[in-house]
């Protein structure tokens, strides 16, 4: 029997209670900083919305992003999103494999029609060695991406690898990894609206919230300059950090286990990248709202920002320089002394010559 295409009917058949559904809508509205009344209209829109077909592509990645969303100890509100979409292809989760799986993807794309489905991309796309570093079913990741997104309504890049290249992109980038946006800009794949849900991994509620926004409004949320949804990436970790007052007071932990760190003092001195990292960790938190890295005592690594892996040491304060060989300053001093001595010597010679001449 065919599954109902309207979300309301589908949820009813799945036995999802009205209470759980409203709880999800409230949580999403709150995560997107919408007023509480928005949850009602969100619920109304979602009920009558079509279950959107989603193709989830995994390329050069560690599966941490999919794990982040799916491997909770118990079903969470975030995982409800899987009931709201029709996840027609996800090679890690789906039962089918090989040609059957590929056929399922092709059929889903055909069934949804042009502009009728979303593509979620997890992982960067390597161009090195003709794309041989990441291939499946005889096709390179680049070919798979290009073919799949050709008729997609939008592409949601889940994780920093697909958004900005991530760890595979880190210097020296041995596989010549690229982000989806870079490939579009280079004309290697068709250009489509892109939403970058960055993070290593991204926060589950942010993935779910972005999808919920699209399902509710039928359009992508407002994005920042890096194509990240503003409701979740509008403020820095530092802006919303509970340790921020200590930054203002000039109280900084000197070591991860000192009295200051235990008293909640700012971790700036220990290399926290919170001031330059835009993400919702400090507000939505992780593991069902338990905590976030800074709360657990470690500085933010800046994992939702482009090039976070190459931004200098994780444990060096932001205000510290990223200097190469310190010996160059010694060489500069020696060169300065030589030039100064040479200038003085030339001056003495000129004086002596002037004296001789007259």
């Amino acid at each position, binding site marked *: 029997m065919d599954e109902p295409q309207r979300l309301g009917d589908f949820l009813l058949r799945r036995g999802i209670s009205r209470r759980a559904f409203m709880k999800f809508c409230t949580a999403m509205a709150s995560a997107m900083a919408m007023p509480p009344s928005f949850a009602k209209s969100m619920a109304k829109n979602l009920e009558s919305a079509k279950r959107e077909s989603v193709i989830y592509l995994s390329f050069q990645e560690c599966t941490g992003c999919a794990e982040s969303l799916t491997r909770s100890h118990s079903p969470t509100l975030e995982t409800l999103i899987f009931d709201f979409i029709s996840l027609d292809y996800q090679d890690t989760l789906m039962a089918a494999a090989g040609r059957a799986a590929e056929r399922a993807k092709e059929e889903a794309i055909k069934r949804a029609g042009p502009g009728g489905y979303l593509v979620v991309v997890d992982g960067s796309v390597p161009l090195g060695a003709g794309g041989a570093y990441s291939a499946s079913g005889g096709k390179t990741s680049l070919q798979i991406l290009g073919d799949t997104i050709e008729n997609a309504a939008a592409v949601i890049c889940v994780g920093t690898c697909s958004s900005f290249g991530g760890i595979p992109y880190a210097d020296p980038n041995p596989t010549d990894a690229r982000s989806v946006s870079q490939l579009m800009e280079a004309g290697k794949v068709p250009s489509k609206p892109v939403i970058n849900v960055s993070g290593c991994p991204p926060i589950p509620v942010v993935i779910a919230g972005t999808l919920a926004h699209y399902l509710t409004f039928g359009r992508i949320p407002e994005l920042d300059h890096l194509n990240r949804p503003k409701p979740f990436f509008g403020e*820095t970790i530092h802006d919303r950090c509970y340790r921020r007052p200590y930054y203002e007071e000039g109280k900084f932990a000197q070591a991860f286990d000192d009295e200051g760190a235990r008293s909640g003092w700012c971790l700036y001195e220990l290399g926290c990248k919170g001031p330059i990292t835009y993400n919702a960790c400090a507000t939505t938190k992780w593991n069902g709202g338990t905590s976030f890295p800074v709360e657990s005592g470690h500085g933010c690594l800046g994992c939702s920002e482009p090039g976070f892996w190459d931004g200098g040491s994780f444990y060096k304060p932001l*205000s510290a320089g990223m*200097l190469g060989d310190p010996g160059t300053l010694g060489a500069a001093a020696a060169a300065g002394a030589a030039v*100064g001595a040479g*200038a*003085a010597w030339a*001056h003495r010679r000129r004086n002596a010559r002037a004296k001789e001449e007259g």
Partner: protein
Amino acid sequence: MTLLEFARGPALQVSLIVLVLGVVWRLVGLLLLPYKKDLSEARPGRSALGGAAYTIVRRLWPHREFQHRVLFTYVMGYVFHLGLAVVVFGFIPHILFIRNLTGLSWPGLPNWAVYLAGSVTIAALVAILVRRLTHDVLRLLSTPDDYFSWFVTILPLVTGFLTAAHFGALYQTLLAVHLLTVELLFLWLPFGKLMHAFLFVFSRGFTGARAAHKGVQT
């Protein structure tokens, strides 16, 4: 490479190389210049070294005779030099910058104290500029070096404030711009009047030594 990575990496490296090379060049070049011996007999009183030390210290405050003319310059000069010192050496992110560069570290001040010092410093710098522009003689004596040196001094203070307040742009952009303005200061320091940071000791000392030889009060 992002703008912040550029500012924290190659731009900082180049500006520090130019700063060190330029300062050592000018100091060595000046100190090795031929010194014309004074063949006259030294007057009784202070030795040359004593005269040098006396003048270096005595010039820290004005002579009574000239006080009414130069008091504003002295007071404002102290306000912005001390304020600048509080900002540069009291703000913890700055101490971390210096520690990373030299290994030296000391306790910092609370941010409010640094913000207060920074505001007063900016106000003093503006007052000094207004006086330079409105004082007939001072205006005629001023060169582009004076204005540019003022500009590269106030710029890091203004960008520093914007960075601390996260105002006007993304924090990483503000931090990068702040670092770049500091690097502009490093690049200019050896070649303009800001070199007085190193030369004031030598110029005062030399004047004092010469004056002591002649028996002149400085």
